[in-house]
């Protein structure tokens, strides 16, 4: 078994040395949606659907909770507001007070535009970071990329992948589940040790 390939079609009699997941292909979003509901109802946790574009309502069909990105946006915004306030207050009042047209050193109304802009800037940075980090990116390699067909996941194919580390994973029954849900090209995906 030492020269077993990383990707083996189900039924070919071969198995990767270390199993990462079992994957199935679906023809369209409706089929993917139905399959996602079935897998969700079996109580799987370590699994995912792959599609070339965001499918409306798929997160519900998968039983996913609301994304945490919006919280990071809020945190970023608060950071921007506080940093902006301290930056302007400390420099204009204590470090380098400039007397312009007799305006008070601490002139909050005149600080509002920059407070607003710094809030926007930092919340945008945190949002971008949130999208990247919460999606476990950047990533240089992934076991699924060993599978030739997976190239189509960004083009016209839809996949359900159930990982072997899920406590409910069972080689035989999980394959059956995906087959019953209408999956084609069932494949075992291995990972390097």
């Amino acid at each position, binding site marked *: 078994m030492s020269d077993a390939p990383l990707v083996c079609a189900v039924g070919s009699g071969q198995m990767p040395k270390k199993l990462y997941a079992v994957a199935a292909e679906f023809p369209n979003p409706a089929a993917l949606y139905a399959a996602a509901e079935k897998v969700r109802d079996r109580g799987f946790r370590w699994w995912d659907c792959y599609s070339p574009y965001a499918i409306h309502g798929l997160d519900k069909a998968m039983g*996913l909770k609301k994304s945490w990105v*919006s919280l990071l946006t809020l945190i970023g915004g608060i950071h921007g507001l506080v940093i902006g306030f301290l930056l302007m207050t400390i420099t204009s009042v204590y470090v380098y007070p400039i007397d312009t047209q007799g305006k008070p050193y601490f002139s909050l109304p005149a600080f509002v535009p920059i407070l607003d802009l710094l809030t926007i800037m930092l919340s945008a940075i945190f949002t971008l970071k*949130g999208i990247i980090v919460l999606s476990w990116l950047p990533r240089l390699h992934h076991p699924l990329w060993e599978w030739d067909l997976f190239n189509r996941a960004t083009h016209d194919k839809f996949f359900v992948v159930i990982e072997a580390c899920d406590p409910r994973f069972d080689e035989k029954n999980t394959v059956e589940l995906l087959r019953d849900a209408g999956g084609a090209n069932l494949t075992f995906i291995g990972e390097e040790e």
Partner: protein
Amino acid sequence: MSYFTPSTTPADPLNRHETAEITRARQELVREPYVNNGRSAAWVGDHIASVVENPAPLWWYIAVSIAGSVAGLAGICIVYLICTGVGVWGENKAANWAWDITNFVFWIGIGHAGTMIAAILYLTRQRWASGINRAAEAMTIFAVMCAGVFPAVHVGRVWFAWYMAPIPNANGIWPNFRSPLLWDVFAVNTYLGVSIMFWYVGLIPDAAAMRDRVKNKILKYVYAVICLGWRGSARQWANYEMGYLMLAGIATLLVITTCTVVSSDFSTSVIPGWHGTIFIPYFGVGAIYGGFCMLIILLVPIRQLYKLQDIVTLRHIDLCCRYTLLMGLFVTYIYGMEFFIAYYGGNPNERFTFTDRVYGPYWETWVLMMVFNCIIPQVFWSKKVRRNPWLAFVVVIFPSIGMWLERYVIIVSSIHRDFLPSSWGMFYPTWIDIFTFTGTFGIFFLMYLLFIRFLPVIAIAEVRSVLPEANPHQPPVIIDAHEEAAHE
């Protein structure tokens, strides 16, 4: 035959009359599809990616060399200005802001429409915008870069420009945060930064799609780096969708803030003609007006040259023209209101400035501005004009020029005759003024041409997600108004 006119003919046994009326009404009600001819998701991807994958057409090389040469003109002018001094521009003591700030406001305004389409139309669920938002956002970024050239070099000693940044320096000097000109520094930088982030987030899935299809090893590597290893998993999409929504909200706020800050450069002063609260909406709608015009100028040739008519449909052009018309009506109202307030406010200086705009030495620019911005876009009331892309292309050239003239009228005609008649004078642009401005068009089009060559010009994933087949709750049925009409 009007739909509401009751039929005078006696009841037709075959009910033919009613059937025809109902058919017509149904055709009116059927929404035009987002993508024409029932194209599939795979077709959308192949077609948009083919723009990048196929060898560059001859016209692209010609266009790049022209744009590159013109951009070089701006480079030479800027180097000459830095070596010599700001005096090479035509500014003088009464008119100490002229073409530089006009060009700055002109370019920053063009940027606003891109954010408007990508963010505000996204928030308001105008899903047709997915077909043009990438092109519009790219326009934003490049326009803001062109805008940034002018305030950066007009400070004179550009090697001290970093004094504007709030960083500790050896002299212990900090910027004056109460100055609108410093707000401007923050606004432009934030606008550029957030626009790039927003654009980049939209680009991640498309870069992944390009990574999975290009054959060239180097390009594959570049796209793989841009997409950060995106796989398109549902968990990633959930974060992506939420993040995109957040960024759309942030960008909407930013559009309003940026046009407010740019208008504050003027309205916080006490110059007659500038000191008005109307300046904030004025700059906002003016910016979006100019931006939509520029967008039509960019989209019409691109859809023709790359045969993207099924994705950037006539409906897209139609809707952009309607926005242009709406913004044109807004600016017309504001022009009228400015004159009314100048009259009704009773301030003699204000009245003088507005009389001077019409009867003073700059009356031609004012008349051209009114004709280009208020009268010519009225042709967009006609559906025939809106649905004729090349005609729309010709029409929007006029408000594009008109919006530049508007900023020129606001800036130069307000300050060339100030409170002290002994300092009155005229502003005449020098060759350096003219070449620098022309050169920024070169920079803009050069960057745009490089963008359409190397990145998907239309957001592939977003256009796919508005196709009928992307709806998981319906079997893939393709509705096409024209086809349905043909059947019935």
